[in-house]
């Protein structure tokens, strides 16, 4: 047998070679009809063709960036001469969708990234992020300065930043912001500006978050210990600094950004929300693994994966095993049990750890359990892990080939991502923002097209070519948010690009086919955190599930509202929520084609 078992075994490929060598002579017979196929790899052009089923006519998204007023461009500092080619420059940034001013429209916050200065350009400096207020009709106003975000506390300049995690940490009804970055994080409290507006105040030090950060990437808010206050999970990447900055290349000569394997991973952080605006980092006590050859975290999403109601945490790590933390916390004590490998979500189907970046969870098969979706590096498959958990034992199956996703190939480096029912046809499709991590890739372009995957009853097919103009051009993308920017039920996209302006993509697919939808905001009467809750909408005898999530995508906070596409069904049979405490509640008064609020204990949609 002349077989390569898997990539890591390439040096061991000699089994049965005698038999192979001595049967080397050609044994094909001539046939007139067979056309010789190309031997060289194709460039992939046209591979994502118009294959999707039941899609509405015309493009699915319209690029409205230019007229939107959103001009944020994440700066990674790579223009410095001579170039550092530091791994710091490879991560880029995300964005948060949050209604910071309570006007019912999602606003946008983009971390600014950073640049280099000082002697030998070795001072790592930050760029100010941008806050855009949504004025309606896809028009945005830059309110960064007005809202106090031009600098940090005491006029301190911004640090080199990556992610934005939005959440109401003090349950005052106003969404706050956490911004992560290299050596620092900033917790920004949303408060009145005294003039009828809102502003953000840097409360990092008072909250107890000013110390202990080495390199924070994505973060997720979720009430882990059941006290209704959202706690915080923060991924940390690798132990890089200019003191640990080796030379690397991928073709034997061209200097480039080093891969993560050249650095030690870092332990991630868990901040226990103590109330009163105070946090305590309890990662070690909570059971988080040390770094070293683990960690290297890039993406995180929180939701209940094993059906016990409590939010669990899934983390995409770069080139090492991904984590699945099953929540074993008790009130006042956060305890997380890492079960990624044994639950089947740490590695791909071959047992290899991948370079994981973006993550999300979604209802793949109507089981009521969230499947996990992970975007990976080039020459790897993105991972779809179908949730087969039983009796609260987390168990997943690598389903990428079986779901058709392997067919998109392995030429992309995927980052921001998410499940989204693009046209309300009743299944959650997938979207991925792409762009290479290194500066001079040898096999694919640095800038890459995004990918759209159509979900038809759990089978996926590429439909990128139907996305519209933005999807036909290459970008250097990182963060991605899926959210409804004009409250029409159609989920729009916002993409954070590196060294190019962000993209605002208006969903123009919905409505063309007359499909219905229902949108929901889950809430507790005390404005507490609901991550871990599950929504079940039954229409036409079919259940669809949505999950209240923290984090998700890459370095981003997408729209927290839950939208269910109903197809042609014009009646909802029932709506049920299972809250994080495990109690189930049926809601009446649910209407079609609008957003409604489901408040725990009220039983009636508002």
């Amino acid at each position, binding site marked *: 047998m*002349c077989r390569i078992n898997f990539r890591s075994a390439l040096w061991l490929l000699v*089994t049965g070679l005698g038999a192979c060598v001595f049967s*080397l002579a050609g044994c094909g017979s001539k046939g007139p009809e067979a056309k010789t196929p190309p*031997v060289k790899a194709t460039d992939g052009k046209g591979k994502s063709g118009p294959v999707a089923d039941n899609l509405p006519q015309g493009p699915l998204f319209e690029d409205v960036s230019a007229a939107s007023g959103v001009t944020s461009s994440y700066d990674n500092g790579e223009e410095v001469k001579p170039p550092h080619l530091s791994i710091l420059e490879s991560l880029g940034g995300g964005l948060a969708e949050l209604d910071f001013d309570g006007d019912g429209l999602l606003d946008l916050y983009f971390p600014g990234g950073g640049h280099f200065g000082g002697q030998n350009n070795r001072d790592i400096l930050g760029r100010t992020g941008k806050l855009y207020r949504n004025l309606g009709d896809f028009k945005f106003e830059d309110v960064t300065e007005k809202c106090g975000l031009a600098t940090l506390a005491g006029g301190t300049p911004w640090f080199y930043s990556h992610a934005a995690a939005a959440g109401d940490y003090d349950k005052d009804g106003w969404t706050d912001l956490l911004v992560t970055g290299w050596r620092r994080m900033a917790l920004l409290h949303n408060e009145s500006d005294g003039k009828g507006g809102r502003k953000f105040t840097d409360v990092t030090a008072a909250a107890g978050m000013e110390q202990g950060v080495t390199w924070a990437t994505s973060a997720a808010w979720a009430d882990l210990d059941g006290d209704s206050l959202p706690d915080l999970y923060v991924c940390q990447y690798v132990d890089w600094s200019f003191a640990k900055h080796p030379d690397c290349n991928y073709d034997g000569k061209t200097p480039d950004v080093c891969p993560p394997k050249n650095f030690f991973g870092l332990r991630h952080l868990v901040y226990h929300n103590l109330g009163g605006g105070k946090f305590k980092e309890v990662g070690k006590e909570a059971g988080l693994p040390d770094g070293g050859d683990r960690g290297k975290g890039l993406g995180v999403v929180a939701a209940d994966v094993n059906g016990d109601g409590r939010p669990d945490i899934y983390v995409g790590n770069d080139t090492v095993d991904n984590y699945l933390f099953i929540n074993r916390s008790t009130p006042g004590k956060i305890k997380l049990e890492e079960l990624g490998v044994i639950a089947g979500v740490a590695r791909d189907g071959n047992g290899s750890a991948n370079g994981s970046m973006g993550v999300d969870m979604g209802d793949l098969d109507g089981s009521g359990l969230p499947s996990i979706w992970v975007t990976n590096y080039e020459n790897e498959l993105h991972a779809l892990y179908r949730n087969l958990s039983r009796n609260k034992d987390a168990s997943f199956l690598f389903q990428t080939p*079986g779901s058709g996703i*392997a067919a998109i190939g392995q030429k992309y480096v995927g980052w921001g991502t998410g499940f989204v029912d693009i046209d309300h046809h009743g299944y959650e499709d997938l979207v991925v923002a792409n762009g290479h991590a290194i500066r001079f890739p040898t096999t694919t372009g640095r800038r890459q097209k995004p990918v759209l995957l159509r979900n038809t009853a759990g089978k996926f097919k590429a439909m990128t070519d139907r996305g519209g103009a933005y999807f036909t051009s290459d970008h250097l993308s990182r963060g991605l948010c899926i959210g409804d920017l004009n409250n029409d039920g159609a989920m729009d996209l916002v993409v954070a690009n590196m060294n190019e302006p962000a993209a605002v993509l208006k969903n123009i697919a919905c409505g063309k086919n007359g499909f219905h939808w229902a949108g929901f905001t889950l809430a507790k009467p005390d404005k507490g955190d609901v991550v871990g809750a599950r929504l079940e909408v039954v229409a036409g005898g079919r259940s669809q599930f949505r999950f209240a999530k923290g984090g998700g995508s890459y370095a981003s906070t997408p729209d927290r509202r839950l939208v269910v596409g109903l197809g042609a069904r014009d009646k909802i049979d029932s709506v049920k929520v299972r809250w994080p405490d495990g109690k189930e509640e049926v809601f009446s008064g649910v209407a079609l084609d609008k957003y409604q609020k489901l408040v725990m204990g009220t039983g009636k949609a508002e």
Partner: protein
Amino acid sequence: MILAGLGLAYGWFLVQWRLALADLRNSKPREAKARLLWCEKIWPRSSEVQRMLARASRMAREPGDAEKRLQAAQKLEGGATERLQLEYLLLRVTTGDTDEPAVALGTYLANGDSESAAILETLAAAYIRDLRYGPAYSTLNRWIELEPEKATPLFWRGWVLERLNQAKSAMDDYSKALEKDPDLFNARIRVAEMLLEDKKPDEALPHLEYLQAKNSENPQVLARLGQCRYLEGKPEEARPLLEKAKISMPDDGPLLLHLAKLDVESGQAEPAIELLNRLLKRDPGDTEARFLLVNALRLAGKRTEAEAELKEYERQNQMLKEANDLLQTEARTPSIDADSVARIGKMLLELGQEPQALYWLDKALERDARCQLAHKALADHFTRKGDAARAAIHQKQVMPDTRKN
């Protein structure tokens, strides 16, 4: 009329002779032999026909017949001519005695002998058989230089390059081989297999469809097409192809693995476990299969067994990593001592990679006939295999203090 008929018949035999020589040049010994046997009927006293029959038999791995033919030719010639001596040398190389004849064959090559291509082909095949990739690679380079239009040496070199962990160069050689001979089955199927291993079903598919158009029932093609359909997310098309191929290839590793994957994905844990255990019995070092077994056991609710298999998977993976590190170090900076290569061999034995392990252990003993690490590993290996005679040979060489270890 009769004369014309005789002339036509004679002409037909001449054509068969020429086609037989072409078949031999194109590494098609069985086809050549069939034609030469016709020629033998009309030219029973031709030493050249016997010599070529000997060559065909040698290339078809029938050394006994080859030797018989050479003896017949020698008898007809009244002695061993220089051409027959060359053929004897080639036969010795083919039957496992490589190094000594290689020196003499080197002289023929240095003199630009008209049979240089046959010499290089024979030597390359012998080096590959003996896992001596370095000499094989340089011999193939010479053969390609001599016959740049020929597909076979390019395919062989691609095969060697794969073993030298140069997949990209291997693919380049396979591609060049297919440019010269689009119907070179082994090259095309290997290209398809490599693309499938790289999870590129869209690129593998045209090759498999091409092969299927030529031979729709070839089980290897059906099996790889089944794998391809699986990767495309078409399990309903994959399964019948794999099941059909399994009738002819019941032990094919990738085939069993993909059937097990289909079983696991459709929730059929028990059949998957059975398939995977069968596969692992044959190839205990197949970590992909073992990892799938972990998943299948989990799916079957056999958590304890799954965890045990996972531990074994981790152990093998670690060993594989160490073996790879050792092999890469050996490739970068070849060692000269026996223990270094013996360590590689020992580790490969533990990973179930027997032929390669034996190569490295033999290499260790070539460097130091008393290498304790190699003798100990071989003694243990043959004991495990129940080969008492060979185990005893090595056990005798193990010194008492090493035995304790």
